[in-house]
């Protein structure tokens, strides 16, 4: 069967005229450019028309922008988990959204207890610190378990195998949470102090949004310092470069991989607490959409690059917050905010088609 197969495939090359024509005419390129330019023109026209309409005030745009930055900060934190794992193992940890969910749930039960005892309201700063630690512990636990049970033995498998496993893990964790804690979404108690606004640079900003933005920036700076300055960070970079050579240099690859998952989990835990402050809900399926969005952010910024994840998260958050109103209102689309997700996914598709390496990544053909 094998030999027959080969012979027939070779036969195809005996029709060179046809093939030649196909390869001379770059169908793919033309389609890509038509699609790309079309989308850009459409967005530009929509923006022009929206501004002409003048339906939104300057303050409304400003609030949308701030909300976008806060949302983007959360995406960026989750995106870092994807980007670091991808940088080291070349695999998409599809279940990272569920790592985030685990952190939110872990901290939820503590938050509820703190709320019932009145501690959450009387000591909000200490409470949030406790919640952060608990959420990080929960997320790190799930991330490390995931690596050990599901991914470790697949490191040398064909690339689709760990991806399918990760999809399974995502489904499994979601439904485990559903079985453990019930399918409903629950209200997450937050300190009352966080209601209201602070005025930053003359602009009134919701307090939660300020905390989210500041918290995310601190976490990212911490991560960059860790990767750049510490010994473990150095070995992580070495493993990302070449696993085999790194292990020849005396680096324990398994340990570095576990550390990577743990750091990704820590950031997801922080993101979980920040997320629950803004949206005030937890539920078993809360991680899925933020997970995919964060992955989009990671790809947009250039997967494998830490600064890229931050930039990608910011851009995605902004586009999602402002985009529907800005691009679509002018086009006369009904209910533009329902199409928020379409914008996010269209960005993902467009980035992968035009610049697969992402904004800050190298345009490596092999990676895609």
């Amino acid at each position, binding site marked *: 069967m094998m030999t027959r197969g080969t012979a027939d495939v070779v036969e195809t090359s005996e029709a060179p005229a046809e093939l030649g024509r196909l390869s001379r005419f770059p169908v793919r390129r033309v389609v890509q450019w038509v699609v790309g330019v079309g989308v850009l023109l459409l967005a530009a026209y929509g923006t022009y028309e929206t501004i002409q309409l003048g339906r939104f005030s300057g303050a409304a745009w400003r609030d949308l922008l701030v909300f976008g930055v806060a949302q983007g900060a959360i995406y960026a934190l989750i995106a870092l988990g994807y980007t670091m794992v991808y940088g080291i193992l070349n695999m998409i940890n599809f279940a990272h959204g569920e790592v985030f969910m685990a952190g939110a749930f872990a901290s939820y039960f503590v938050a509820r207890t703190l709320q019932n005892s009145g501690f959450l309201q009387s000591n909000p700063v200490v409470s949030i610190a406790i919640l952060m630690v608990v959420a990080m512990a929960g997320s790190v636990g799930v991330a490390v378990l995931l690596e050990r049970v599901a991914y470790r033995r697949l490191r040398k498998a064909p690339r689709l195998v760990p991806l399918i496993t990760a999809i399974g893990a995502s489904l*499994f964790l979601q439904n485990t949470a559903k079985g453990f804690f019930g399918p409903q979404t629950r209200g997450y108690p937050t300190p009352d102090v966080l209601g209201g606004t602070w005025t930053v640079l003359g602009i009134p900003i919701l307090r939660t949004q300020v905390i989210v933005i500041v918290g995310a920036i601190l976490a990212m700076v911490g991560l960059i310092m860790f990767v750049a300055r510490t010994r473990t960070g150095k070995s992580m970079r070495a493993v990302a470069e070449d696993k085999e050579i790194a292990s020849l240099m005396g680096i324990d690859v398994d340990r570095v991989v576990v550390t990577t998952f743990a750091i990704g989990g820590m950031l997801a835990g922080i993101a979980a607490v920040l997320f629950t402050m803004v949206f005030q809900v937890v539920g078993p399926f809360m991680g899925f959409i933020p997970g995919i969005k964060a992955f989009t952010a990671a790809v947009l910024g250039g997967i494998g690059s830490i600064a890229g994840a931050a930039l990608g998260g910011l851009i995605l958050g902004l586009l999602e917050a402002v985009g529907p109103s800005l691009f679509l209102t002018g086009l006369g689309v009904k209910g533009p905010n329902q199409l928020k997700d379409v914008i996010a996914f269209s960005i993902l598709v467009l980035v992968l088609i035009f610049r697969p390496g992402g904004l800050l990544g190298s345009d490596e053909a092999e990676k895609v």
Partner: protein
Amino acid sequence: MSAGLTARRVARLGMLGGMGVIYLALVGMVQTFDGVRLVGDQVTLGRVLLILPPLSAAYVLARPRIVAGEAVKPDGRAALVGGAIIGVTGGALVGLSIVVANGLPERFAAQKIFTSVTPALISVVTFDRAIAPGIGMLVVLATVAGAAGAGLAVLGWKIRRPLITGLLVVLLLSMLQNVFRVMIGQLGLDTAWLYSVRLGGLTYIGAILTFAVPAGISAFWANEGITLRQRLSGATREGQRQVRLLAVAAVGLLLAVLPFLLGSFLSAVLGRVGLFLLMGLGLNIVVGYAGLLDLGYVAFFAVGAYAMGVLTAAANSGSSIHVGMGFFEAVPIVVLLAAVTGLLIGAPVLRLRGDYLAIVTLGFGEIARVLVTSDALKSFLGGAQGLIAIPAPSFTIGGLNVDFRDPQPFYYLVLVFCVLAGFVSYRLANSRIGRAWVAMREDEQVSEVMGVSTVRYKLLAFATGAAVGSVSGALFAVQIGSLAPTSFNILISIQALAIIILGGMGSIPGVVVGALVLVGIPGFLTEFETYQLLIYGAVLIGIMLYRPEGLIPNVRRTRELKEEDRLQDAWSKGAPDAEPATISWEEAPG
């Protein structure tokens, strides 16, 4: 101790067994499945779940281990003792957590976190006794299960396989008793000897018979099977063809009479299995043959369903377009439309490979979902309210009105399309196109160099897969008569993916088995429905970790996945405990 019977490993497996039980209890399965009576009124599926984890852990302990490329069988008696210790450890762990859950200062405080920890669960895991004797019984049962698990592993396959076959048949007959009871009743046979109405499960005699007969047949096959198979392969070509024809005819006859045996309700489940089978066959072309992991397959399902809805619906359907076509005239248009959509989705992602392709297609699937829900397209597709008043084709034959929305006619309609899709897939796989796909899947660059136009064949795969998936969507629209946009979410894509992964990518019999197991069992046994997605997740992980080629593998796909360790495995698994089945796959066709 070279076979791995160390104290540490025993303790670890024991803990794992116990944690497995605790997991199943916390996630709610033990309690839910306690309502499923298997044999008599004492053996319930929930109780089987209580002893299954220690049993499996002990089985793992006693399996031959590969040490330095050689299979080392553990000493039988030591393995049995180890298995029993695993059972004791696991049982004790579970007992301890029962005591903790029960003894917390505030009774059932654990329930505040884990919704399943209720007094009802405690009484299930303590066998409706007081705490102390209940835990004692649990530990004893777990110990027996551990020893049994180890025993199963130590016995040779000639004994193990009949035992497992018998147990599986008992499990299947008892779990799906609402199916088989109806079937046997329809045949005009008595079911009282097999199913006890009073006890709720199989009768004891029924259980013994349903265990013994398949076990006996399996034992006979284990001893004589090789000779029989040799005689078969030694037969003339003509003879082999006759045997094959006979088998096909038997399966065909069974499929033809099945709806009459099952009645209307169960036929509806079969219809659903058929829909997913069709989707699995379509996705199999894209993922299994061409190796393009498409996670947005629901987009094609949605295109099919909505196209059929818009084309055939009555004027008041919720869409401003009114065509009012018949089903059969609309099918070719729907298929064409889906194929074009496949091309449109395929064209921009041609450059992407592997995991990136998967994520982009996932994005397309989500875009499809959002678009059908949105107000933007509401005037065409009905928005969040969806479409209604989609007619089903019907005809009158001899005064008898056949409406394809009724489960039994619908089953035949789906069956026709499944057979068609199966035939097309089979022919494609063995054609030049199929071989080009294989070449592309195995190595894109090399196949390009060899003259395979990857652009053309990728697009072809997308278009074909889309066409098959859209038929499934169109039939779905006919089956339920109205479309709600919430039915078109990513879970549909993942369900289809799980089906082909379980069966084996690129294998048509695999898709059939996958659809039957993953859609059929939850459909027939409603207790499973709650845990359907959990089980899908577990299946995806388990199959990828332990058997990436699937249950009924495609030969070439297996080679790709196991290229490196195949030789070594064959050599090391070699003599002592090799089962002949592994050899026969190598010769099985596509």
